[in-house]
């Protein structure tokens, strides 16, 4: 191989190597940062490592909402299985018993410690993610 061709081959190899490793890095970080969405039944069926961020959606079981100072706890159900949620903060305006909700949080001892509680939308207005996750 003459020097020019050799250089060209090297540069192509370099570009390929560089982009492949870049893309794999991006995909790796994508994979480790995904939030999976589960219903309470799916939650029961699968093994979910604690401290992994997950989303859980279902209905707020009527009579399950308990408030203590700024903490709120309630049970999400899909009418087959249910899971308890603990959250500190203000729940959205549309949050109420017997209505749809999605929480984002981590699972510890069969309880979800939520960082975010989203209520199913009313009318045209919807917070991000809700529609998509509430269709099941």
């Amino acid at each position, binding site marked *: 191989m003459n020097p020019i061709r050799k250089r*060209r081959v090297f*540069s*192509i190899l370099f*570009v390929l190597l560089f982009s492949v490793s870049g893309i794999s890095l991006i995909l790796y970080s994508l994979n480790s940062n995904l939030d999976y969405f589960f219903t309470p039944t799916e939650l029961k069926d699968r093994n979910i490592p604690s401290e992994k961020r997950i989303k859980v959606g279902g209905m707020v079981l009527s009579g399950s909402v308990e408030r203590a100072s700024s903490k709120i706890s309630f049970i999400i159900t899909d009418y087959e299985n249910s899971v308890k949620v603990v959250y500190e903060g203000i729940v959205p305006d549309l949050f109420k018993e*017997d*209505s749809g909700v999605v929480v984002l949080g981590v699972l510890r001892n069969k309880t979800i410690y939520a960082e975010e509680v989203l209520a*199913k*939308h*009313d*009318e*045209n207005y919807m917070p991000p993610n809700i529609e998509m996750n509430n*269709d099941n």
Partner: protein
Amino acid sequence: MNILLKLIVLIVPAIFIFLFFIILTNEDVYPGADYDQFELPDFELKDLDDSKRISIDFIEGDYVLNVWASWCITCIVEHPYLMNLSKTGVPVIGLNYKDEKQDAIVWLKKYGNPYQTILHDYKGNLALDLGVTGAPETFLINNGEIVAHYQGEVNDRIWNDVFMPIIKDREMF
């Protein structure tokens, strides 16, 4: 090097467009439609006209339940289609949603009444149980069971594409 570049610029957009095409043409053709089947929930509501109480057992057989309100503009647009539908013999029951009684009656005088019976759901309780998010929404009910639900305006196309297959399948009406 140039060939590599050419391949990349041709293939990358092709992949994206192909993917979106598949996703768009996949099942959820009508995003407003769903086919979850469930029993009609228990209810007891007043009739809009004479305020007699109507419970779940009052209406039997197959019918279309249309959620509407006088404040809903799309309902006006949808209205002529419902008038035609009821003329062809399909029983249409109205669910007047979060509306003042007087407004609703005036509205019906103005645009005509396609409904056999109208349930007055002032607080939206039945609507909530049905999973209504706004108006208009339309349910197809087969012997006390909800078999199709559409959010948005029903027209000829929606009727034929969303409801007709179910109606034929179940040999309704």
